[in-house]
């Protein structure tokens, strides 16, 4: 399992930091509190960027690398927030031969979001998925669960316009 580095600019608020510090204070002195702290931190921020992990490291005295090691070990810890709009493009064989790869690249280019990560403003996340089982509609993508089929590279702009 390989985690993609954070691409979204940190937009944490003082309020969130206050909450996080309260969480850490609550767990102070408790054995084995790192996982609960990280889980609650993720509840507060939606993900665990370096800024958040640094606060945890500073306050707990655990090294930042150790925390990062934990964050990249468990699949539920996220280094990137889900975008407000989560775009999944099917790269199953049927979609792929009909050009879903091009579609994916086009989306990535237009939004300036690397595949597998989230745009710096947190609005869009772009990922490739395994077969969505809608081969008849190939190429297929979903945005927050809504299905778009028979896509062409040229369609991307119009579709994205709806979400921008």
């Amino acid at each position, binding site marked *: 399992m390989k985690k993609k580095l954070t691409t979204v600019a940190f937009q944490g608020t003082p309020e969130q930091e206050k909450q996080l510090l309260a969480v850490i204070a609550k767990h102070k002195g408790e054995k*084995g509190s790192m*996982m609960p702290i990280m*889980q609650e931190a993720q509840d507060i921020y939606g993900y665990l960027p370096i800024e958040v992990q640094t606060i945890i490291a500073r306050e707990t005295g655990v090294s930042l690398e150790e925390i990062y*090691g934990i964050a990249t*070990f468990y699949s539920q*810890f996220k280094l990137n927030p889900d975008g407000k709009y989560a775009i999944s493009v099917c790269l199953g064989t049927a979609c792929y031969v009909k050009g879903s790869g091009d579609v994916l690249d086009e989306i990535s280019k237009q939004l300036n979001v690397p595949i597998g990560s989230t745009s710096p403003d947190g609005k869009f996340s772009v990922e490739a998925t395994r077969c969505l089982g809608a081969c008849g509609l190939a190429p297929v993508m979903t945005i927050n669960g809504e299905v778009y089929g028979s896509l062409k590279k040229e369609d991307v702009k119009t579709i994205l316009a709806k979400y921008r």
Partner: protein
Amino acid sequence: MKSLAELEKIKEKTRGAIVLPDGGNEIRIVVGMATCGIAAGARPVYEALEAGIKENGLGKQVSLIQTGCVGVCQYEPVIEVYQAGKERVTYVKMTAEKAAKVLEQHVKGGKVVEEYTITYAQNGGKAPADGVVHTSLTDTVFCKTQLRQALRNCGLIDPENIDEYIAMDGYKALGKALTEMTPDQVIETVLASGLRGRGGAGFPTGMKWKFASGNRGNVQKYVCCNADEGDPGAFMDRSVLEGDPHAVVEAMAIAGYAIGADQGYVYVRAEYPVAVKRLKIAIEQAKKYGLLGKNIFGTDFSFDLDIRLGAGAFVCGEETALMTSIEGKRGEPRPRPPFPAIKGLFEKPTILNNVETYANIPQIILNGAEWFSSVGTEKSKGTKVFALGGKIKNTGLVEVPMGTTLRHIIEEIGGGIPNGKKFKAAQTGGPSGGCIPASLIDTQIDYDNLIAIGSMMGSGGLIVMDEDTCMVDLARFFLDFTVDESCGKCTPCRVGTRRLLEILDKIISGNGEMEDITRLEELSTYIKSASLCGLGQTAPNPVLSTLRYFRDEYIAHIVDKKCPAGVCKKLIRYEIDPEKCIGCGMCAKNCPASTIVRTDYTAPGHKLASMKIEQANCVKCGACMSSCKFGAISKG
């Protein structure tokens, strides 16, 4: 809670609400609200019933309860209506509208809505041929031969109400252990019962407790519960936590008393929010009643319980990895010895059992070791819960005595294979297990028999496969899972499983050579013997067991470059029979690869020339075959 007498009072008070007193006119409606029920839409059903009861002013007579899983997954949402002196009525596939009708016709009018009952559902929505409508789930074949011990309260009581648990003799075992038994007697009882761990290799539970029992009172010890059920297709532990969480809480307190621990941790998958919520409620309620905390039942024994959430790592189901995770680190396993009973969580003596194991404990204490060991086989006592799934008519959660044959589970309880297909094999133990071929369908399922035939009990996933399943692909599926979940600490598992997967990939893409089979076997044997923890040590099992029973399928992939089950895409071919093809062109229209063209051949009796698949560009998606209304396209 100061005494058993106090407990008895609560039981007296509540019991009547569950086991309705004879001659009364009270009605109890339970709605199955485990995760699967909720996902299937149980919440609007519950809300409709709640509103209906209020509107009709039935509040005094009718109690509405949310409960855990009754086990019939494919019929969710399920509600059951209990009335004193009357047969229990099981309504399935409910909706808010249907629920309203049940309220109107059955609860108010006293007339069962037969077409919504399980009997109709099992008969394709029609009245049974013999005209006898058994409205209750209890009377179906699915239930009749089950023996619900671990699941006894699931689907019966309200898991969020401690009183209901107490009404079913809950916490009586804890009271008995604390006030009438010594810790050693508790261990002896568990040992004598023959209970073995339900989560993996089947180590005797009592033995584990005994190993950790030394030096009571002088050292910090821990009791842990493994609720990190990660096998794809297994959900026994979730069902227990969602349907009967207090059983686990009570059992852990008993275990704490037995070994001399005052702190417990339940390690639950974060993917189980309903289970977590109910467990939290259960712990709070138990604390409030003094069933957790200081001086339980007025004795010197104190015990506290905390929940730790997993974060998505299958390896944390392994005991040492689970403890490392609770300690707040990467969930990597540690070598044993030292065993957790000597040096476990935070380097202190620790016992770890899984949810289903704990669910058996209170009854063993209450009813005695002999009661428990009277069921099962020589070396595997009691019952086992299975999550029955795959190509089978009745999917769901079943609990049967150890030693039940696979045939009985599949053909009787499971209702056989759907669509007239043939049973090919069953897979137990998830990614750690293996498959049981049709020739061994009469195997009595217990720990040792499964090991002998190259599989394992595991936590209890039981996936049924028919002739459309490719065994090489199946092995690949599990390997893919293990590779993804390998922690990466030891070499055999980190690199070895990846290489195994790559060899399988090579075979299913038609590039296999016969030496690959030898390589698979050598590598599998190595990984099994050399890996650090149970994950690696069992990871090759799906490969070895499919090689053992379905070697010819591997050979077909390698030598004939064919997938007999027609699953492996690179090895299948779709062909259009020109004699059957009427030339309508639907296939070409649906082909995502635009690789279907018209030929110049028109079959006798047809008006249009037939179609043909240009194989070079075919992506084997099967869209053509499903679009052909004339059965002209075949897969081979």
